């Protein structure tokens, strides 16, 4: 079987995404997970964390970029001007 990007992503969705959710549910059900805070026991908490934090970071940075992103020669131009 040829390893293509499509196959790799299918494996990722099945074993990575699906697998981690199933394993997570199982570990919680059989009381194998021990956390310090109550919110960590929410099923799929770390999945939500990973997805939401990543999205906040990317979208938040793009929002900040409205003010912060400048041309490459920003300082050089101002120095010459």
């Amino acid at each position: 079987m040829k390893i293509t990007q499509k196959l790799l992503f299918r494996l990722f969705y099945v074993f990575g995404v699906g697998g981690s959710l199933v394993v997570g549910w199982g570990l919680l059900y059989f009381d194998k997970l021990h956390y310090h805070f109550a919110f960590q026991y929410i099923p799929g908490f770390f999945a939500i964390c990973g997805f939401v934090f990543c999205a906040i970071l990317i979208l938040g940075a793009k929002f900040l970029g409205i003010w912060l992103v400048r041309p490459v020669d920003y300082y050089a131009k101002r120095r010459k001007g």
Partner: protein
Amino acid sequence: MEAWIHPGVVIMLGAFLLPFLGPRKAKQTYLVLLPVTGLLLLLLTSSGFFGAIPAYPGALHKWRLPFLHYTLELGRIDKLSMIFAYVYVVIGIAMLIFAIREKNDWEHVAALIHIGSSVSAIFARGLFSYIFFVEIATWSAVFLIWFRGTQTSKASGFRYFFWHVVAGGFLLAGSVMHVQTTGSIDLDLMPWGWGWAYAAYYFMMIGFLIDAGSFPVHAWLPDAYSTGGVTSVLYVTAFSTKTGIYGLVRCFPGVELLMWIGVITAVFALFLAVLENDARRLCGYHIISQDGYMICGVGIGTYLGILGSVSHIICHIIYSCLLLMGASTVLSVTGTCKFTNTGGLYKYMRISFWLYLIGGFSISGVPLFNGFVSKSMTIEAAELIHQPLVYLLLEGATVGTFLHTAIKLPWNLWFQGRDEPPADIKVKLKARGDNTPVNMLIAMCIPAFLCVFMGVYPYYPFYAMLPYPVEFVPYTTTRVFSITQMFVFTFLAAWYLRTLIRGTPTYTLDSDWLGRIPGQALVWFCREPFMAFGARLDKYMSEAAGLVIAAIRNPAVALKMTPPAIGAGVTIVLILFSLLTAFWIRGP
């Protein structure tokens, strides 16, 4: 002076011999043998050859030099200084191998001085000795940045110098005030509180935080690290900030303010990293973010917090060296490390990609790599002191780190969905084999091995070398499962938003804007209006001086006695004389 051979001083002084060794091979051999000698000296020290090292916080005291009313101690040998010194020297060896083909002897001299002075700063017990060696490290770092040889690197090297002189100034001011108050010159636990009585410690902390690259005084770091020499800046990236954090570990453990500064630093840097187009700048922001973890651990101040901070520093020096080596190999081979100009390099630089990825996984904290066994300590310390916000922000920073170093950077440098690199880069590459020079690959293998070894088996020698006994167990079902699930879904989010994390040919402003723009305005003011005013004043003064000189020589010429002027003058004199005569005749 008791018997001990100081490895830092040996490396520093030995650096000056390098240019005088004749053949190139002799220089290259010496370049590696000198820090290896330093490593052997450290091994002898650990083995008890110079005396047994007591349990921390006890120390062996060597190289005690009387100076004025004080005793300077240049050899405080305890578990904390030893673990720092070991990692400095080992990574120094890797970096020197990485740079071994550089023909500029003075780059190697500056590198050896930088390594030696950083090691010496770690072993210094006194505040002034520490500052002395840190200033030597700063001076050598400026040259290492300047060795890139571009206008940009000259400017950023000067800005690096400026920032670190300011940091040194704050540190010195605080130290002088502390010594005046307490009489102690030791780099040890400092008092902390709020009020004028603690002003000395505010100054010292500001100095350490600038050196550590903490928010908001961090902007010098990506500026310098991205513009420095291809191989020469690596030394600066490894040692400069960690020596600053070492000072925080010694002096301010448990100061809660540091916990919040650390956590803000850890998160803030990642937002700017999203917008970055330059691989070395991106690595620079991640160094800042990881420094935030370390500062946070110092601020937490519990045994686990300090252990987490120190272990994170040690692991960080190793994997950040690997990350920057990876970016530097691309820069060295292709001439660029900007995401808009690269991609499609996997076929041509396969080995450096996989070695880089070890660093990327390590910094992210993927299980089986050394970042996992150190970062999880700091996060656990935040959980144990019941700080959910700190915990969540540190986890958020973990997500961001994985996003950039394990996904964005390797994707943009080596892939970008293309099989071939841009044409202007492809002409520089040979079609077969790995294009990365062999010495660079060998050098990358050293930190890569350490990342995996320490990650798989952290207990010996890594955990055993930490200052306090380690009861922490990193590999638990809870921890491994949670972080793995988090990374899986981070990758999912990154994949959906992948178009937003591509490089764009732009520059991202940072907090140094607040200094650079007023600074440029001040320079413009001095160069234009102020100089124009000065020139005008000069001109007026010259004219006045000229008039005085002419009057002294010949009043007639000075007064410009032309016929109309003479006529006017005589008329005025006659009028005045007539008026005076009339008043005199008429009377009061």
